[in-house]
């Protein structure tokens, strides 16, 4: 008899993907959600959080979704309760940092900061998993560090100014920091690492 393991439906991840697609396809939604510094100062504070859901172009959306969705899906299936915490904490932290520390950025859109929060969290959590998964996550973390190195060195494969914006590295740094902080909080709070909701050990 073979034991079947049911993987729960990743509703958070699917919902996030749905919102990203709606924001991309409906300009009025994008206008209402995008981070706009002037609008925020006039009371539209939700834009600090929702700006991550808006992208400037399809290629911008695809680049972020390619990393965000697999990472969010893994977090949801392995550490279900942390998806919402990670999303909310990273969105607030990145948006807040932009508002306080980046007064020159009048508009902001893009989920790469969220993606890095999820990638770092998955990578660090994976170090406690099965040997194969540890290898995968180690490579992932090395890749993330390499990306940061490239960003700080000014290397980029694509000039995003063609899409009407400049990449904001601080959003990536804050996103990664939030992922790392949540991992540390889980470790310190529980004494030992918790059991995941489903497999992939």
């Amino acid at each position, binding site marked *: 008899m073979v034991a079947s393991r049911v993987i729960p439906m990743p509703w958070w991840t699917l919902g996030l993907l749905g919102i990203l697609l709606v924001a991309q396809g409906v300009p009025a939604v994008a*206008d209402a959600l995008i981070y*706009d*510094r*002037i*609008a925020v100062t*006039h009371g539209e504070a939700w834009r600090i959080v929702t700006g991550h859901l808006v*992208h*400037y172009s399809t*290629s*911008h959306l695809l*680049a*972020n979704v*390619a*990393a965000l*969705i*697999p*990472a969010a899906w*893994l977090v949801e299936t392995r550490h279900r309760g942390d998806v919402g915490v990670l999303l909310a904490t990273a969105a607030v932290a990145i948006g807040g940092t932009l508002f306080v520390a980046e*007064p*020159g*950025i*009048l*508009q*902001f*859109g*893009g*989920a*790469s*900061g969220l*993606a*890095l929060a999820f*990638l770092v969290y*998955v990578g660090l959590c994976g170090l406690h*998993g*099965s*040997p*194969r*998964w540890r*290898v*995968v*996550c180690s*490579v*992932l973390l090395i*890749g*993330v560090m390499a*990306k940061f190195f490239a960003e700080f060195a000014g290397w*980029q*494969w*694509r000039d*995003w100014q063609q899409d*009407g*914006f*400049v*990449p*904001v590295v601080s*959003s990536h740094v804050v*996103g990664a920091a939030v992922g790392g902080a949540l991992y540390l909080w889980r470790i310190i709070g529980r004494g030992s690492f918790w059991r995941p909701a489903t*497999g*992939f*050990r």
Partner: protein
Amino acid sequence: MGSTHRSRLAALAALGFAAAVLTGCGAALWGQSRQHTTTSVVDYLYPNATTEPVADQGIPVLSLPMRVGIAFVPEHNTSPLSEAKKTELLEQVAAHFRKRDYVKSIEIIPSAYLTPRGGFANLDQIRTMHGIEAIALVSYDQKQFTDEGIASLVYWTIVGAYVVPGEKNSTHTMVDTVIMHIPSRKMLFRAPGTSLVKGNSTPIALSQELRVDSEQGFTEAVARMIPNLDQQLIAFEDRVKTSPQEYKVVRSGGGSSGGGALDAGAAAVFGLLLAGGAWWSRRG
């Protein structure tokens, strides 16, 4: 008898002459008067509008935050306002522009830089000189009326003309600020303000009193225009956000559009690594 009659006639003639002289003086001194000074934005911007069609330059592309200039529309004749008074009034208006986040700076343009009926050619020169994108043009229309009240009867005493304020003055002023986007030749919004100043004066001090009333009229009209201007500035800010078909916004100069973007290559590597790694680790 005859000499008495002649002397009476002479006295009447003298009285009639005196009355005629005094009436003439009175007419010259105390006659009703009306003054009208006006400037027109339309006349300044479109001096040849009757012969040349006004070009449609399309949707204004607003480079936010933008630099704005502010100036009085130039007069054809002598201005009722001194340059110092103009600057004082413009500074009051400019202070309310500076509160808006989408205004990077606002510069007061002296009247000497604007040519009567200069049109957009003149505005293009100013735009180049001052590095502005939009300009707030303040035009005005002021009428002053002087009527004589019953007290003016004492002017016959000559002394009364110096001490009795029998002239009733009323000064009607309207100022209107129009904000023009110079590159697109489009009006962004406008705000008016009106005032009515009433006063009395002696005929001797009439011109001085009218000058004071004129300045007071401008001051009050500008003060009443400013709340309207504030409303329009806020409404314009909302329109820019809600009507992308009317205004195209480009963030530039002091601010920029930022984005959180992973390189497509890196994102693909991370995504494939996670998906493939998850599958591989499950097999083990």
